């Protein structure tokens, strides 16, 4: 899309314009800023109209006021009307020092310095206290109310994040999640002049969703160049994406069993996750699918003999997996731990803009593979797995359904990979254009927005991991729950820390 064709809205009415899009069935897919000149930050909002398979985009230039002063650039915040924007507006404030006026809980998202040293609304960056958790937290006061701080160093081998619980006895009144410990400046690294290096960065934004991120990244860059990939490489991308989904869903269901101390399924599903990872290994030599996708196609073909071998192994794995999942979902002691824990309503999920299996478990019918079909999913529709109760059980059931459907998809396509070449180098990029790519990673919608400059070079890439939408959902789900149920609730979401921190 030509940058000049993006409608520009004055900053005063930007928020109300975007919020009005919600009334037309829009979902806030992304909201980000880009510095276009010394004084100007351009905000972009991308609305996804899922039922119409359409995206809307608009922008607004926020300028440093001529009068200057201490206030800095500002615009009315949209969070009070649409909480889905809360983390994204904090990100803009942190990166560019742009103040969203009226944001109800304006504090650092990752705690790092802004791009040109403009002070953030909460004050300039202070390297002396540059630890993300070192700030004020929401507090509940009162006798018998106590505070529990968990992390950033955890007991398990997991990523760092700080969780602050306000508890009354065993009951959690409020949970605040502070991330940012893994901020690596990934968006700057994505601008590496060598596109191959840039793709490696995209794959590592959330390591367990390498294929999902690479799919969205490649789609954005190919769109910018106006290139189309062959059907064969689209099919291989789809196969890799579903294998990744299988490995993660199976692994997480096993981890849920570990958390409730149900040993047989925990051990068995853990082993099966390894088997699925090994299938990806067979395709491209890496268990997480690194270096498989590049703009223009895929770097590894699946020859017919190999596809047949994969299909045979998948058939055996399908039997085993479904059997173990049947055992897991027939154990009353396991179900008793899942049901009614960490409940989110459909309204809440919609309000905060959740995506992926966590949103589908609340009854929101959204799945990029169906709503905005791309690649191989234009030819093969995977039904959306939806549950309505919004608890840990619903999230587990959605994942189980997706496991079944991904297996069916894989068995169908592995026996029938379309012919064609696997890689054709994309041509030159269109000058002054914007393009984006989305994909349904196993956590939900990943999105890459790419801009080219007048000379047709890559000028700016904005990455989004679905976790940034869903972390707030985890905090909400814990309200009124027992603190001892936090681990199983957390595992049912299993969000990415690195993907959030970029």
């Amino acid at each position, binding site marked *: 899309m030509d940058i000049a064709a993006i409608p520009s809205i004055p900053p005063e009415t930007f928020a109300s314009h975007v919020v009005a899009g919600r009334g037309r069935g829009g979902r806030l897919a992304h909201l980000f800023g880009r510095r276009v000149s010394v004084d100007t930050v351009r905000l972009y909002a991308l609305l996804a109209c899922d039922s119409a398979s359409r995206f809307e985009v608009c922008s607004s230039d926020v300028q440093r006021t001529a009068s200057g002063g201490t206030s800095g650039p500002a615009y009315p915040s949209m969070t009070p009307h649409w909480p889905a924007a809360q983390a994204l507006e904090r990100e803009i404030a942190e990166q560019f020092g742009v103040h969203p006026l009226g944001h109800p809980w304006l504090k650092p998202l990752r705690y790092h310095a802004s791009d040109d040293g403009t002070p953030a609304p909460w004050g300039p960056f202070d390297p002396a206290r540059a630890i993300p958790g070192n700030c004020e937290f929401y507090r509940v006061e009162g006798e018998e109310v106590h505070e529990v701080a968990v992390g950033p160093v955890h007991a398990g081998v997991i990523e760092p994040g700080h969780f602050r619980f306000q508890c009354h006895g*065993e009951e959690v009144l409020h949970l605040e999640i502070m991330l940012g410990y893994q901020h690596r400046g990934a968006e700057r690294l994505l601008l590496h002049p060598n596109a191959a290096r840039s793709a490696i960065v995209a794959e590592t934004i959330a390591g367990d969703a390498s294929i999902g991120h690479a799919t969205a990244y490649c789609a954005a860059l190919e769109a910018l160049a106006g290139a189309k990939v062959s059907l064969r490489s689209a099919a291989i991308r789809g196969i890799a994406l579903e294998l990744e989904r299988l490995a993660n869903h199976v692994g997480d269901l096993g981890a849920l069993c570990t*958390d409730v*101390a*149900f*040993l047989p399924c925990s051990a068995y599903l853990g082993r099966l996750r390894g088997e699925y990872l090994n299938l990806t290994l067979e395709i491209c030599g890496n268990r997480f699918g690194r270096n498989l996708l590049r703009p223009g196609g895929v770097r590894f073909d699946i020859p017919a003999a190999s596809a047949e071998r994969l299909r045979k192994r998948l058939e055996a794995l399908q039997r085993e997996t479904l059997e173990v999942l049947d055992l897991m979902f027939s*154990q009353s002691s396991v179900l*008793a731990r899942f049901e009614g824990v960490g409940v989110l309503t459909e309204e809440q999920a919609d309000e905060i803009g959740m995506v992926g299996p966590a949103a589908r478990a609340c009854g929101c019918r959204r799945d990029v593979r169906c709503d905005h079909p791309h690649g191989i999913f234009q030819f093969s529709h995977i039904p959306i797995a939806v549950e309505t109760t919004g608890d840990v059980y619903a999230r587990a059931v959605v994942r189980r359904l997706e496991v079944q459907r991904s297996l069916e998809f894989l068995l169908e396509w592995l026996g029938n990979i379309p012919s064609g070449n696997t890689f054709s180098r994309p041509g030159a990029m269109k000058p002054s254009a914007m393009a984006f790519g989305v994909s349904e990673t196993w956590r939900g919608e990943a999105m890459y927005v790419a801009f080219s400059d007048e000379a047709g070079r890559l000028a700016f890439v904005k990455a989004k991991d679905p976790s940034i939408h869903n972390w707030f959902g985890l905090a909400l789900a814990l309200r009124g729950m027992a*603190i001892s149920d936090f*681990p199983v609730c957390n595992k049912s979401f299993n969000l990415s820390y690195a993907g959030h921190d970029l």
Partner: protein
Amino acid sequence: MTVFRALAAVPEAALVLALPPLLLGIIVKTKAWFAGRVGPPWLQPYYDLRKLLRKGAVYSRTTTWVFRAGPVVNLAALLTAATLTPIVSSSSLVGFAGDVILVAYLLALGRMFTVLSAMDTGSSFEGMGASREVTFGTMSEPALFLSLIVLAIATKSLQLSEMVGPQLYGAWHAAGPAILLVVGALLIVLLTETCRVPVDDPATHLELTMIHEVMVLDHSGPDFAFITYGAALKFLLLGSILLHVALPHPGWPLWVDAPLRLVELAVLAAVVGVIESSMARLRLNRVPLLLAGATVLAALAAVLILTGSTS
């Protein structure tokens, strides 16, 4: 006979001291078998203890002598209770009328000091664990005491070694249903007090869900060795009481009695391993229901035996 008994007491005491970690090893091995793994060696708990004993301990500046006293007092209380409890033979090393009350309170003393040393750290985790431990402790105590009352009535004795001794063999014929209920109650008490699934999960790494393990997070080195060994000893103590009640031996000679008990203890550990492998842990707020169930079982047993003795 008494000379032989006195001579046998020395190896018996040594056996009792050496046995507890092996039981933990059996549980872990059973669970590993269910999970399709090889599991750690049978003697791994001994290696762990040796490793911990050779390490130094780290003490936080906020802690006082209470923190250091916790593991020592707990272990001392459990060792004292072990002398009063019949474990591999049908008699205890020491015994006197009314010692059953001492045993119950020694267990409570150990718990109190573990809880106090947890609170001494001032950590919110350990406070949470202490609160859970005390809550569930107070709920399992009625079941334990009611069970002991039933046994006291059935054997007309207040000395633990007699209450669970050969006299019980006859009492099974007279008051079988009541004692069967007591066995059920004692099994739940055993799982609760020794922090096994479905009440607690000794294998978890999730602090927020732990009960016992979270209380001892700050202990290290020899202190932690004492705690680990104490937990295993507690399992041996309560497990022995359960076995003596469930399967009383009618005064067999020691060379039959003791080896049989050892086999039974190993089977009990394996059974606990099977329970841990075949069900998920209860939600924390459901645990009181389980303990109330144990208390009801024991109360029912008391009603049965009281009405039985009057008629």
